[in-house]
């Protein structure tokens, strides 16, 4: 594991360079009926609006935003590379050090997610800060998800905590 001084330098680099920067690329996701319904059933949801037949116009429950957000970030995050002191580095040096610290979902002005939808996610870095008491680095990922008609389906801010040794 790096020394505290090295970790502080790495944190300072990320705090200075990440905010506002886009994650390269886009993540594409297809919404499948079975997956959407099985997801809702995890929470004992029985309303046909969320677990009914495709012909009846089933839509995704709100929690399904977890699924497309996580899949998007798994796709986008590995593409985030930086040059620090002349050497290329990834955002996260050790994926086992990541903790999911929080999420903010906003559906204002968004449309429902339906089976057959093709979602596209883009993301950029938001605030980045270090809690020196435990050397945990927090990184916000501002993610916008739209459907095939370019309509927003959800705007999400994911806060990841990276434990010492992970950045």
């Amino acid at each position, binding site marked *: 594991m790096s020394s505290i001084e090295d970790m502080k330098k790495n944190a300072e680099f990320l705090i200075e360079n990440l905010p506002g920067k886009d994650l390269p690329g886009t993540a594409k996701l297809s919404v499948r009926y079975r*997956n959407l319904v099985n997801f809702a059933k995890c929470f004992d949801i029985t*309303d046909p609006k969320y677990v009914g037949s495709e012909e009846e116009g089933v839509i995704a429950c*709100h929690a399904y935003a977890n*699924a497309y957000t*996580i899949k998007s970030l798994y796709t986008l995050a590995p593409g985030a590379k930086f040059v620090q002191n002349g050497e290329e580095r990834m955002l996260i040096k050790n994926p086992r050090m990541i903790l*999911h610290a*929080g999420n*903010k979902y906003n559906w204002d002005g968004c449309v429902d997610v339906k089976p057959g939808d093709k979602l596209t996610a883009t993301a950029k870095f938001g605030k980045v800060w270090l809690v020196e008491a435990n050397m945990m680095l927090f990184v916000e990922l501002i993610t916008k998800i739209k459907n095939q008609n370019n309509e927003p389906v959800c705007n999400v801010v994911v806060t990841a905590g990276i434990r010492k040794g992970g950045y």
Partner: protein
Amino acid sequence: MVKISDLKVGQALKSEFDSLTRDLLKQYAKASGDTNPIHVNDAVAEAAGLKGVIAHGLFSFGFITKLFEDFLEHGKYGKIIEFEVEMRGMVRVGDKLVTEATIEKIAGKRVFFNVKQTSFTNVDIKDKNSTIVKQFEAGERGYISEKDIARGLIKTKEVEEGTLTYRERVATPGTAIIELYD
């Protein structure tokens, strides 16, 4: 029927879920695409120092959204605008999740809630002689930490078989905003 004129600051919604199993975590992993093995494989979770599988950070969030979907009768009386949640405590197999949402503010047709999801983790049941008559997974695998004890999260209550020891902690605090149609 849910109408803005019927709601008051301080009014609360509540739900409980106590069927958290390994099979359900596998089902969630498959459906969500979050296939990190620490959620479904005890050996991997133990190797990561977790003493056993933990629920996905956002698994319990689903019960928060469900509380509001049920309250709004699935879009009949209004829509969900925003949720903000913080994952503070690990949730384990066998935990009971109690989700509570209390109205903090009403502005126009928007209703602002404080949300608190509490996990209850049973440890063991002891008889009058302090002999363990039933041990739960948390007791067997040692999920309770010194920190939990120091923070006063360990509690007891009398049940039919004896004295139940359990941990009560806020796993997911947050806020929610909904908008009613009427």
